[in-house]
């Protein structure tokens, strides 16, 4: 920090996670010292407090470990209800929550394989992030 202008590697921040996402890359941080992986990334390892980190690109496939069908949503998403939402366990054990699309609600099962897909357009207003979804693999 304080070196924003001169730094070579992208910062290990949530903003950068979403910037990668808009490039259709699912990226996590890994502590070089102890190996702990972080999704979302963290600028300091919470396990060993090291600042030596690198970015790793994750496989986008994973297994659904739980889900729900949401019928009442906040104003921003009210037009989409009902929609499915779940937590995906990626191949290396990291977990990601998100909306599930492209499959009828009654066919969703715990344990099924899904993959992350990207919507590259960022929101116009704050926080100006893109969305991502889970879909059955092609």
């Amino acid at each position, binding site marked *: 920090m304080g070196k924003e202008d001169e730094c070579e590697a992208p910062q290990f921040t*949530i903003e950068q*996670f*979403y910037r990668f996402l808009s490039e259709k890359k699912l990226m996590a941080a890994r502590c070089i010292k102890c190996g702990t992986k972080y999704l*979302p990334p963290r600028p300091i390892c919470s396990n060993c407090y090291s600042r030596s980190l690198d970015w790793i690109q994750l496989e986008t496939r994973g297994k659904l*470990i*739980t*889900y*729900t*069908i*949401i*019928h*009442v*949503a*906040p*104003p921003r*998403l*009210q037009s*989409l209800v*009902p*929609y499915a*939402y*779940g*937590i995906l366990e990626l191949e290396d054990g990291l*977990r*990601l*929550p*998100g*909306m599930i699309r492209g499959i009828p*609600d009654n066919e969703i099962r*715990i344990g099924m394989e899904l993959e992350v897909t990207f919507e590259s357009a960022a929101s116009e207003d704050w*926080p100006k*992030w893109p*969305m*991502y979804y889970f879909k059955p693999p092609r």
Partner: protein
Amino acid sequence: MLVKGKPLVAVVSAGLSKFGKMEGFTGRELFIEAVGDALQRCPDINLRKDVKAVFVGMMSESFEHQGHIAPMLADWAGLLPAPAIRTEVACASSAAALRMGIFSILSGLYDVVLVGGLEKMTKRSTLEATEFLGMAADFPFEQWTGVTFPGLYALMATAHMHRYGTTEEQMGLVAVKNHHNGALNPKAHLQREVTLDKVLNSRMIAYPLKLYDCSLISDGASCAILTRPDIAGKYTDKPVYIIGSGQGSDSLALSQRDDLTSLRAARYAAREAYEMAGIKPRDIDVAEVHDCFTIAEIIAYEDLGFCKRGEGGRFIEDGTPMLDGELPINTSGGLKSKGHPVGATGVAQIYEVFLQLTGQAGKRQVEGCDIGLTHNVGGSGATCFVHILKGG
């Protein structure tokens, strides 16, 4: 100082406003109603002279566009220039105020403090309330990606059903029980029974949670007056003692937790409280647990050690937590039927256990109870407090 098994503080009085859609009342007016209720129950206290500090929980400034409430409430309670601090850990905000009150008395600085909480929720639309409550979840990975507060508990419910075979009927029984109790509580938001059929056929909110699996959006306020245990007799003949206080944390985002069927923060808080009090789960006579959704109460049975992991569904089926069962739980009606003005809830649980342990619980009084427990969860379980109380 802290000695195991010794009372931490005494509760010499507690007060509650009516819970519900309190049209025409702002949060500060509900709070002063709760203070007035506590005062009427403890006429020997001289609030202005005796109370040295105020700790109040509130979840969200957004409902009334009002932050910085602590000194305002001290003012309305006639306590200026006494110091006042607001605590916030989502739906566990007033249990945090209680714990701060306990610390402040144990520190030796104060002899008597007022703790409490409030939330004025019903003047805003349901969509606004959904948005404000959602702020307790992780913004970049939960709010932003589309999960709601009921949705988070729904994710736990699906996982619990999948792993342990817990059923929607078992969850529904929690609602039936709590509405039965709430019908006996004149301060409850909804004072009416519901049938299992009605619960199971109510509108879907977030599968598998239906409308009657969810607690109510309510207005309300709560308070309790804490003193050093050795001076409680100055204020009341029937003090209640807090003999255990536990708190734990977990990651804010549900997805980052190892186990989706249990709350680590709750298990940690329970262990701390039980150890401090020197008692076991089987010693508890009455408990108020955080039933923001029916699945939350089932998980609470397990996390508090009232039954084994995975057996929460059978625990309610067997009738143990019913008002006439072996361990009555949520005699007040719980968040489900009494209502859940989120910032008020933690100390409202203390209020109910205070009434039970002093024989003031009216039609819902549990006979012969001596030890009570409260379990207050913040958000989807990143925060949990457990307190253990004993009659005087």
